[in-house]
């Protein structure tokens, strides 16, 4: 198979994962082409954070309400940056496409630009891989990054068939953030972040699974992850239900816990 690996790497960790994937694919007898996605201007990490800072408050709200989180993921706009011209502008000649990036709170702006300008995506099976600092948290990491990518691919006529997210154990914003992720990893999974690393047993196993699914191309990630059900963000019913669940969702759980279960 002829496979394109397009990756955007700021600090080098995604580049390393792209290389490992390319080597594994070549070992399996596939032809691999590479595409480096580069913004025209390299940015300091702080402006990157400020650009997405608006979302932090919304993310906090998303922790309180699943409905709001769905609404937020379906409706937020990802800013774009100007990227360098592509070597493979038309990807229609490739059998499979792999898109790799790091997670920058949301989908990186360069990937948003790439998914908009690249040609020939219609009917393609795409795999997406990423590196992030922490463990593969179901909503904060996996859903926030891969669901918008799946949506954008679907709009271009392609489908996301395989995903891979591994920990780089590196965070640009100082040690305290890594400490928070280390804590979350031990609380949620009972394992250190290094367990989910690129070179760990978990990483190797999941990379093989990722490539198997990519080559097979029969899995629909949106379907298998339950992302197909979309929240209706417009209309009275949608707004009313979002408003209601945003405010009453946590109260409902509290009410159930305190009253209903007592009389059961």
């Amino acid at each position, binding site marked *: 198979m002829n496979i394109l690996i397009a990756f955007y790497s700021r600090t080098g960790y995604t580049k390393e994962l792209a290389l490992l994937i390319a080597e594994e694919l070549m070992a399996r007898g596939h032809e691999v082409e590479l595409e480096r996605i580069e913004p025209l201007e390299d940015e300091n990490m702080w402006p990157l954070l400020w650009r997405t800072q608006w979302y932090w408050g919304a993310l906090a709200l998303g922790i309180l309400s699943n409905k709001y989180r769905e609404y937020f993921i379906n409706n937020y706009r990802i800013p774009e940056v100007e990227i360098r011209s592509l070597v493979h502008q038309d990807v229609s000649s490739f059998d499979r496409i792999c898109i790799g990036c790091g997670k920058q709170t949301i989908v990186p702006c360069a990937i948003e630009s790439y998914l908009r300008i690249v040609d020939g995506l219609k009917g393609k099976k795409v795999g997406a891989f990423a590196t992030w600092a922490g463990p593969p948290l179901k909503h904060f990491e996996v859903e926030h990054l891969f669901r918008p990518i799946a949506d954008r691919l679907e709009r271009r006529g392609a489908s996301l068939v395989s995903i891979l997210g591994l920990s780089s154990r590196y965070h640009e914003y100082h040690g305290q953030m890594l400490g928070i992720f280390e804590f979350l990893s031990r609380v949620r999974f009972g394992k250190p972040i290094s367990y989910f690393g690129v070179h760990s047993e978990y990483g190797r196993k999941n990379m093989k699974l990722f490539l198997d699914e990519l080559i097979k191309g029969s899995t629909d990630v949106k379907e298998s992850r339950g992302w197909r059900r979309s929240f209706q963000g417009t*209309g009275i019913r949608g707004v009313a239900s979002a408003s209601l669940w945003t405010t009453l969702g946590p109260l409902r759980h509290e009410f159930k816990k305190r009253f209903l279960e007592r009389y059961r």
Partner: protein
Amino acid sequence: MGNSRDRLTVDELRKEVEEWRKNRPKTKSFISFFSDPVDRAGGARTLLILPATMVMVPIIELTNLLLIRPVLATLHTIIVILATFVLRFFARPLIRIGCWAIRGKDKGIRKSIYSMYPGFLHLTVVVFGPSLRRYLRIDPSDIRSAGSFQEWIDDTLGVEGIWVESDVSRAVRHETWCPFVDHGIPLDPTCKGKYDPSYRDNTSCVKGCPEYCSVFMRGWLNDFLKSVNPEFEVEPMRHLMPNGDEYCEMVYVTKRTRSTDSEVKP
């Protein structure tokens, strides 16, 4: 996009990664907040902004979801209900005035009304159009979806019609029965005039006045379609019931799918 680039091979990438592995970036300690001038400036600004966004964004989002959007949605719904009432109860006198103006459009007050009538119809699109577009969930890239405006008019007035062609770039609607053609019936949801001749009133019907549909109605539909997508339009009508045809034909086209002039003979 900027400069063109050379192809990146796996060997080149391997060399790059080997170089990078020798000096891979390490997570900085908290001390760099104070020692590195860039981090000091960036971190200070972040620490100032972050608490504000953590508090303000949920407030703004909740205000939007709980207050602004429900109020706007309610407002749009009220406007759509109002538009339905206006169409339902004023269509008959308006058509009567329109036909009266068409029949004497060459002179006097009828000439003035004839020239002002499209402007009045345009005004209704300006006032009710945005709410109707939202209520009918019209997709600006789909012309069949834009045609649901006509479905709404037909449902409100009791006109019967079907879509004989439905595509995103071309749609054709045939209207097979219209209360204003053979018999201007009272606008009654039971359509009594269709079955009971005693309800019929031929004084206000558009029979013998096809210009009402081919000029005013088509202009009105085109006004609405332009507000959805400037590329959409209704072609000049080839079949009209007031002319004695079996049905009225509305052909919705985009600039790309428009028929050539020789095909269309209004």
